């Protein structure tokens, strides 16, 4: 089993509304873009227009946060239909979402909530991933989330669950090495064992991101440079590949586009130079993100850019 013919796109970044004008005006030499699907599927305005133009010039991947694959609620086929249309419209290279649930009883918490890691949940998720893949007519790519709690009913480790899921549902994997790092601290497991145990032939994409150490736990705040420990995991994961699509997630306190681009290119630099992972200015900075954890994916790009202020006469 190979990676479903999903190509190595190189080193990409998220397309965020703060950078719309920069990207259109400067055509930066970034390899590819990832979008948060929910920020575009209903847009009939500037965001959708920008996306169409970006998709003409760059490979685009769709990354979702509301599929709620692990929820006991029925699948939302209205949502999946829109996802499918957008994927066709922009020629999305692939569609990904998370191993999580986001709500139940018709609600959406807009968070990536953990599922119990046991046989019952596995069967449920496998069934749903298969249904979604049939509907979207393409393999789904599932990401490991970061998590902050675990259930007494867990009977397997997350990597065991992912192995079984990928095999039984025949789906791809998006390995977020920052999430592995974050969860390894929060749950006290060995991140190296996690990485080494994955079915790397199914890993289509890797995420790197910044996080915040809160003393008692780590939060994946996506608000700064990638930490050293995460780069170490990235390098370890890359030993299993001869090149895998790599994307930097940075959603809060977003810097200027060139800074963002330079951050993801660090991966390229030290992978080829075989140097030590770059030092981040502050290892594991303690920051306001601990109490809020508010700046996650779904918020990114949801609001109009300030450059489009209304005018009146």
């Amino acid at each position: 089993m190979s990676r479903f013919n999903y190509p190595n796109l190189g080193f990409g970044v998220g397309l965020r509304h703060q950078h719309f004008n920069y990207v259109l005006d400067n055509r930066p030499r970034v390899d590819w873009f990832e979008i948060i699907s929910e920020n575009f599927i209903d847009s009939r305005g500037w965001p959708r227009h920008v996306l169409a133009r970006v998709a003409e010039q760059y490979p685009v991947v769709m990354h979702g946060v509301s599929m709620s694959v692990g929820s006991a609620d029925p699948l939302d086929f209205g949502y999946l239909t829109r996802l499918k249309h957008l994927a066709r419209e922009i020629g999305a290279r692939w569609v990904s979402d998370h191993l999580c649930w986001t709500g139940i009883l018709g609600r959406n918490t807009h968070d990536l909530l953990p599922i119990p890691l046991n046989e019952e949940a596995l069967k449920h998720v496998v069934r749903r991933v298969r249904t979604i893949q049939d509907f979207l007519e393409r393999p789904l790519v599932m990401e490991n989330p970061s998590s902050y709690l675990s259930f007494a009913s867990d009977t397997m480790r997350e990597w065991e669950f992912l192995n079984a899921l990928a095999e039984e549902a025949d789906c791809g994997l998006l390995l977020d090495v920052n999430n592995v790092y974050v969860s390894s601290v929060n749950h006290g497991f060995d991140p190296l064992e996690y990485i080494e145990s994955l079915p790397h032939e199914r890993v289509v994409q890797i995420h790197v991101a910044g996080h915040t150490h809160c003393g008692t736990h780590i939060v994946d705040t996506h608000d700064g440079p990638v930490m050293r420990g995460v780069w170490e995991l990235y390098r370890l994961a890359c030993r299993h590949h001869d090149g895998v699509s790599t994307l930097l997630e940075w959603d809060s306190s977003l810097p200027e586009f060139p800074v963002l681009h330079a951050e993801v290119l660090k991966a390229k630099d030290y992978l080829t130079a075989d140097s030590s992972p770059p030092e981040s200015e502050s290892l594991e900075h303690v920051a306001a993100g601990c109490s809020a954890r508010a700046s996650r994916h779904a918020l990114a790009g949801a609001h109009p850019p300030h450059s489009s202020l209304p005018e009146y006469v």
Partner: protein
Amino acid sequence: MNLDDESVGGIELGRLQGWMQAVITHPGGVGAGVASPAARRRVAVDAKSLETIVIPSETLTGAERLAIYSRSYHARLLQCMREMLPALYHALGEGLFNLFALDYLQHHPPRSYTLDNLADRFVQHLAETRPDSNALPSERESWPDFIVELVAMEWAFLKVYDGDGLEGRALPSAAGIRALDLERILESRPAPAPCLRLFAFRYPVHAYMLAVRRGERPPIPAPSETFVAATRSDFRVMLYELSAQQYAVLKAFDGQHALKDALDQIGSVSSPRPHAATIRDWLCDWASKGFLETV
């Protein structure tokens, strides 16, 4: 604890998720959430037996781990509301804004796959829960009007920004309209653009919103009857002040009725009735501003 419907992995998945959602979305925090009927109906644990469901880590109790999700649920939605409604945030200040927003979110928790619909019912909720909602309109205080109108303006701004527009379409030209004789003008059936929103406000909330969005810190304005059109042109949201007459005429456009019938319809509320030549000037102006899809 009660584990009647135990399945292979413990509590049946839907019950476990219903419980967790009730706990982490409870406005009173995890303790109140665990004790709430909505949670206990699904999993009857208390603060002590909670760890038979959520296990502790080396550094955190089960309740503390749940609290990470509880805090972030509220913080994320509040942050989103704040970013979407910056002028309301400025008007109310953080404490009152959070109070209003949390009350709304408790009554109307998010159900959509996108956060873009988060405050769809906020205007309605504020109108229904204003402290004087049972009083006669003449006896009501006016500051709640300002709040309700401000949210209506801010929300419309976002909807116009990202909703249907006329970009890329052939639109009626001002020159074409000017060339029509007055008889033809009166027979025309102007259709409003899908992005056009019309407002009759008691407060100039549009100017207040714009000032906040420019980074200013405006005071709450004095009441002043204001008519506003919001529309979109080349993906930019544009706001225009209208006269009462212009507002009434635009409001009557539906693409089906001839302009002269629309004028008859508004004749009783808008006097004196505007002259056809004036209306032609208005149509030219409105066409150039992107108010109209067809004329």
